[in-house]
């Protein structure tokens, strides 16, 4: 097998917990994790549901290879209908929690209903129970993690929790596990908090021992680990610089959204880059980066463990932050840095700590603050709204203050917590929100990387880079180089990346392996471990099925082709400098071809014949 064959169903309304068998027929069609949980969502939740109503569900899902010796096997996802977008939300996280859930014997946990009072779920192998969390409500993720470790006297307990932002209704609150790994985007933590569910604490000692062909699996795992080790990106670039290896690269090609995407290059990029994280600080001689770190089972180890200069204004009188924790990854460094015009590495690191401590998505937070800064500079909002803070681009002080307020849902932070779409609409300037389907786009400017425009526009969870990372091809030349400035061929490229990613996100392994691996590297590992025959063709087909099922969910939720759009700024305001000067994103040259390749109507609807072909006709 390699699935545990069991799912845990938690009815928060009645407080009951029960085990039920996994639908193995669906597992063969949807693999696990992202795909399989989406299948359950479609079967059990009305897509038109209010995301914050008790009728919405939250699913924690592992993949069949989660918790195995396969490299990067620490992944799990949180799937629900998202409050930021009104679309299907699926956020993927690493760390150690996912593997622990698998070791406890569970493929998935489905949370339904709403608890009358705050609770957390405690799982010890087969035993699972809801326990009171009244004393944890109002606590940060970090305080919750510590309290649960103290309460259960178990240093090996793994905790996933929501922070204060989620409780206060921030629409982009994440689920944070192991202190600094997060199912970060689309507000999956907000939905969890809306159910009065504060945390999931798990201890698993059953292990994974049902590999189909162990000898063949161990051989495949060793061979694919070697591929990762020998690849320049996964073997050298990512361990040394993390995803921050991209900061200078993306800036140089003029694809760095800067100051709310008014500009396409940031003059301070090198100061907040992966290289800068290695430089000794002037004050204490230590670098920002202490070490790289791996998630469970990962032989890449791109994670950053960083410290902040104790003399820096952000932590000067806060000894509780004078230690190491999860450091900046590229998306966070961009959002908290470039997009706000901030070139202060310590301030961005501090903001990142707070995003982890209080459980907010640094991409949407940073991009929302950037929109607020533009509103402020245009005089639309003033210190009257911001509580006296000058929200100027480049202000590290504003960044530090606003991340604290947003993390706690206080003052102007409560408004920032609603995301840039609602903020800019409220103040009459909707065009200043850099969102698709209500979610902020991340650190690649589609004016300089055309395919990413189509990726953002068509992403099923709102603008996102990890739904079809054509940057790999358009910038890095993986698996082969395409010209980032042309639109020809991008529809097919985006579709191929989206489908492959949907499959990868359903296996239990990490998308970052795909800098070195194609589906041909996943197939032998899955085939040796899992029931059924797993070929490249079958994985690609499953990926396409998953993508279309997500799309069908969104269609039933009321989204249409009109939602496959980009902010006007990317379509009308040309880049001013560098290699992107004079360029806009030409989405209209790609979208019709994309719909056609997908087998969708000219309006972007998923027709019956496509549903029949992919076997999803009866899924909704």
């Amino acid at each position, binding site marked *: 097998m390699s699935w545990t064959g069991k799912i845990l169903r938690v009815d928060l309304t009645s407080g009951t917990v029960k085990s039920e068998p996994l639908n193995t027929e669906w597992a063969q069609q949807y693999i696990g994790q992202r795909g399989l949980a989406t299948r359950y969502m479609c079967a059990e939740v009305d897509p038109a549901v209010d995301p914050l109503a008790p009728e919405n569900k939250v699913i924690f899902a592992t993949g069949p290879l989660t918790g195995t*010796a396969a490299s990067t096997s620490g992944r799990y996802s949180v799937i629900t209908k998202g409050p930021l977008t009104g679309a299907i939300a699926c956020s993927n996280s690493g760390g150690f929690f996912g593997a622990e859930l698998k070791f406890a014997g569970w493929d998935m946990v489905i949370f339904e209903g709403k608890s009358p009072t705050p609770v957390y779920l405690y799982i010890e192998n087969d035993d699972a129970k809801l326990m009171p969390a009244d004393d944890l409500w109002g606590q940060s993720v970090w305080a919750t993690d510590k309290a649960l470790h103290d309460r259960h006297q178990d240093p090996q307990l793994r905790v996933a929790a929501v922070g204060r932002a989620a409780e206060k209704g921030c629409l982009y609150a994440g689920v944070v596990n192991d*202190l600094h790994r997060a199912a970060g985007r689309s507000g999956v933590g907000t939905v969890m908090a809306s159910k009065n569910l504060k945390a999931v604490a798990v201890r698993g000692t059953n292990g994974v021992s049902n590999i189909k062909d162990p000898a063949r699996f161990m051989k495949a795992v060793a061979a694919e680990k070697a591929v990762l080790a020998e690849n320049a990106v996964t073997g050298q670039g990512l361990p040394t610089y993390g995803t921050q290896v991209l900061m200078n690269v993306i800036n140089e090609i003029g694809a760095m959204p800067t100051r709310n995407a008014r500009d396409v290059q940031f003059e301070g990029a090198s100061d907040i880059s992966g290289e800068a994280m290695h430089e000794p600080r002037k004050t204490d001689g230590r670098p920002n980066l*202490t070490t790289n770190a791996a998630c*469970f*089972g990962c032989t890449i180890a791109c994670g950053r463990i960083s410290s902040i200069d104790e003399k820096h204004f952000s932590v000067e009188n806060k000894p509780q932050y004078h*230690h190491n924790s999860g450091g900046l990854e590229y998306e966070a460094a961009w959002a908290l840095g470039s997009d706000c015009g901030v070139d202060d590495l310590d301030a961005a690191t501090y903001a990142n700590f707070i995003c982890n401590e209080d459980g907010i998505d640094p991409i949407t937070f940073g991009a929302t603050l950037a929109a607020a800064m533009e509103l402020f500079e245009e005089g639309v909002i003033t210190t009257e709204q911001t509580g006296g803070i000058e929200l100027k681009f480049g202000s590290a002080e504003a960044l530090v203050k606003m991340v604290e307020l947003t993390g706690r849902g206080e003052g102007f932070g409560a408004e920032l917590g609603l995301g840039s779409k609602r903020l800019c609409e409220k103040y009459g300037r909707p065009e200043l929100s850099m969102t698709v389907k209500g979610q902020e786009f991340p650190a690649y400017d589609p004016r300089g990387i055309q395919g990413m425009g189509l990726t953002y526009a068509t992403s099923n969870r709102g603008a996102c880079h990890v739904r079809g990372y054509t940057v790999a091809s358009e910038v890095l030349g993986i698996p082969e180089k395409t010209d980032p400035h042309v639109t020809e061929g991008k529809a097919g490229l985006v579709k191929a990346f989206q489908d492959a990613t949907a499959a990868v996100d359903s296996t239990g392994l990490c998308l970052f392996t795909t800098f070195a691996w194609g589906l041909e590297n996943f197939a032998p590992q899955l085939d040796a471990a899992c029931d059924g025959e797993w070929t490249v063709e079958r994985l690609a087909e499953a990926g396409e099925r998953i993508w279309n099922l997500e799309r069908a969910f969104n269609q039933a939720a009321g989204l249409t082709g009109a939602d496959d759009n980009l902010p006007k700024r990317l379509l009308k305001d040309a880049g001013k400098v560098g290699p992107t000067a004079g360029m806009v994103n030409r989405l209209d040259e790609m979208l019709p071809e994309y719909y056609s390749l997908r087998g969708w109507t000219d309006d972007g609807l998923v027709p019956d014949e496509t549903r029949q072909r992919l076997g999803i006709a009866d899924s909704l």
Partner: protein
Amino acid sequence: MLKSLHIDPGKCTGCKQCEMACSYEHEQSFNPSLSRIKVFDFHEQGRFVPYTCTQCTEAWCLQACPVDAISANESLGAKVVSADLCVGCKVCTIACPFGTISYNPRSGVVSKCDLCDGSPKCAEACPTGAITFVDASATGLDKMRQWAQKTDTAAG
């Protein structure tokens, strides 16, 4: 040549590939809770440290065992538990100064690192070289080499 496990915490990323390799070899299960090697995460210091039995020459566990269930494999340098002889009294877990022998409630016997018959799976699985299996008399060779490189007594 007698070999021993050598651990360089500075290279460890905390991935736990070693724990999975160990538990798979000995228990046919990917199960860190049954691994005889453990990686410790000193989160606030940003340090990861793998730790396991160092195969003491005069082993406290071996001396303490009342039923002679722990024996020395002289050619490997390993102290090996016989699951058939072990009665699960746990006296060895008290005697060991390092905590590297532990009781398994499911099997009812103790377990410890046995060097996998001379090819330790943890070292094979480690992606960074933090765990190596090297000449027992020269575990410090890499450190010596590093310092040797910095030593320059030649006059100009």
